[in-house]
């Protein structure tokens, strides 16, 4: 009986899975100085968006964001892409996020997800986890882990999105 119901449930879910109208889940998170921010406000006027989940204790995440930062001005000029870095640090370290971001001179928007609500809504298992969204806010590609040079492949995808239009 129980199994049957589960199968039934999965069935219903999978039927509807065939057509996905992907837009970002709406979750209440915080800005760097603790004010509320809704993820439905993650927008970029029809241009691509990169969302990257990171934390202070994650070195590969910071390497990835450093790499983004070095190229950000150039990327923005060429494609208008916008980067949002979502810190999943909880209240033990949220106070240290803003100083690190300013100290590193990161130019992109950084937001706080202190109880992992956005992380769960986006099905992030491990960080770094980076999403690429097209101009309609649909996730077109995503990647876990960061290795040096991966930003180049990501940027190829951004350029493809822009040229498609």
């Amino acid at each position, binding site marked *: 009986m129980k199994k049957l119901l589960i199968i039934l*449930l999965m069935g219903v879910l999978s039927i509807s*899975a065939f057509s996905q109208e992907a837009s970002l889940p709406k979750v209440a998170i915080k800005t760097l100085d603790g004010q509320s921010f809704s993820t439905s406000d993650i927008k970029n006027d029809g241009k691509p968006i990169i969302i990257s989940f990171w934390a202070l204790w994650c070195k590969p*995440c910071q390497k990835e964001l450093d790499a983004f930062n070095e190229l950000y001005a150039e990327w923005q000029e060429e494609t208008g892409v916008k980067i949002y870095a979502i810190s999943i640090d909880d209240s033990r370290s949220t106070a240290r996020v803003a100083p690190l971001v300013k100290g590193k*001179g990161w130019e992109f928007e950084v937001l706080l997800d202190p109880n992992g609500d956005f992380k769960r809504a986006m099905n992030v298992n491990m960080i770094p986890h980076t999403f690429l969204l097209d101009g309609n806010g649909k996730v077109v590609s995503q990647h876990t*882990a960061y290795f040096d040079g*991966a930003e180049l492949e990501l940027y190829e995808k951004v350029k493809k999105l822009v040229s498609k239009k």
Partner: protein
Amino acid sequence: MIKKITILAIALLSSSLLSAQDIFDNARITGSFQTDVQFYRPDKAIGIYDTTILGRKVGINGYTNLTYSLGKFKAGLRYEAFMTPLSGFDPRQEGNGFPYIWASYSSDLIEITAGNFYEQFGNGLIFRTYEEWTLGYDNSMNGMRVVLYPAKGLTLKGVYGSQRFFWQKYERNSRGLVRGADAELNLNEAFTSFEGSGLRLSIGGSAVSKYQRDADPIYNLPENVGAFSGRFNLGAGNFSLMTEYAYKINDPSAANNFIYQNGQAVLSSLSYSQKGLGVVLQLKRVDNFSFKSDRTVTANALDINFLPPINRTHAYSLTAKYPYATQPNGEMGLQFQVNYKIPKGTLLGGKYGTGITLNFSQVNDIVRNQVNDTTAIMESGTLGYTSDFFKVSDHIFFRDFNIEIDKRFNSKLKGMVQYMNLLYDIATIEGHAGEEAVKAHLGVADFTYKLSSRNALRLEAQALITEQDEGDWAALMAEYTIAPKWFVAVADQYNYGNPDEDKRNHYYTVSAGYTRESTRLALTFGRQNEGVVCVGGVCRQVPASSGFTITLSTNF
């Protein structure tokens, strides 16, 4: 369980049937999957015996998470199976089922969640439910949550339910119930006239109460325990000030040795930031503030609140070897951090600029005085002690001074070095009564050399020098990556200074992995010391093990 699923299935079916068109146009399903499999070898040297493995030889932790959304309606579930749990996890994790099932409706005015949920009020000082999969921690609520947005800038929340306790089902009086409410007002959003003030201000307050029946044969215990907190976040120009204060009525429990003292906690941080410079000072005081939905539980479970340890969370295996944990019965701490980037083109900055992070934290005990001449401090059934809010005890639980310098030398080579000085009261923090506090010097160097635009070699070296506990350690790692898909790494941690010569172990591992999009497969062979491991481009908390490990993770 069957009932729950039936209801959920019916709800889904009916909502689907009612608007068949929607199923194909707007419905959406997403999810994630992860499994960790370990094949164990008994390895006496690192404390894995036949009895630890119990002849089962394989540990598997796995979950699948599904979320269904259709317009304003959402539902989700998570299936978990720990069969058997990986070594290092609580044996009570063993089991399988759906510990997380929920459905929600949300509009611009209201959000309703039925079933399991995670929530945090403010900094979590009186209420936080969350999950940390890699640590096997989950204190999710099972009940209802309502969030209201009655006016611009104003958020009201109400929650009630019971908390997850491994696989134990809630039954009448089997553990406590939790009820809570929270209000937060963002003045900048609420009042347009406030915009011109140049300030950014939000204020909030919460109240949480737990109910647990008093079945104690000796003490008359409060069945309803209330906790209250108030907070504000103030920003002015480059400055930002956050403070939260929390108070709890007397709550005698196994955690505080059944004393009738009230509890207090305060957390405050002041920060300044401008481009290239960030400074933060943080203060904390905790006094008798353990808050659990079962007063008899002392283990790491059923916490209603979260008291954050504010020291730096380190990212290398040896620097993270002695992590501090908040002492809920009482502590006073401070933390100071400066992040500075020496600008490009200066003598010390060079062509690319140089980053410096300086961090200091210290946590001491609070001062406790006898209530009267005849009552011992912390004596059960009494007030326990009195404490001066501003007095700091000489007893240091933890101190960490560290400095980190990171630099890019040219387009191919970049690296960072770190020094750390640590004082760790192992007797208090890990409960090793009588053991001397660990005093240690640590060093880390981490360099990456780019061989081509996508191939890179990373070398990491660490040292931990101490006379106490397990003595000196050294660690080396070499990692080769081909972006964005492949990695292979070899590492060794060597406890060369262990006072017990038989325990001068090597912890060697070889690992390799493949990542495509969000699917990641990693294999590790060797002996793993417990702690934070950052390899193959991700960081994870891992238990000690010996043998072969497979991790597979994906989402959709």
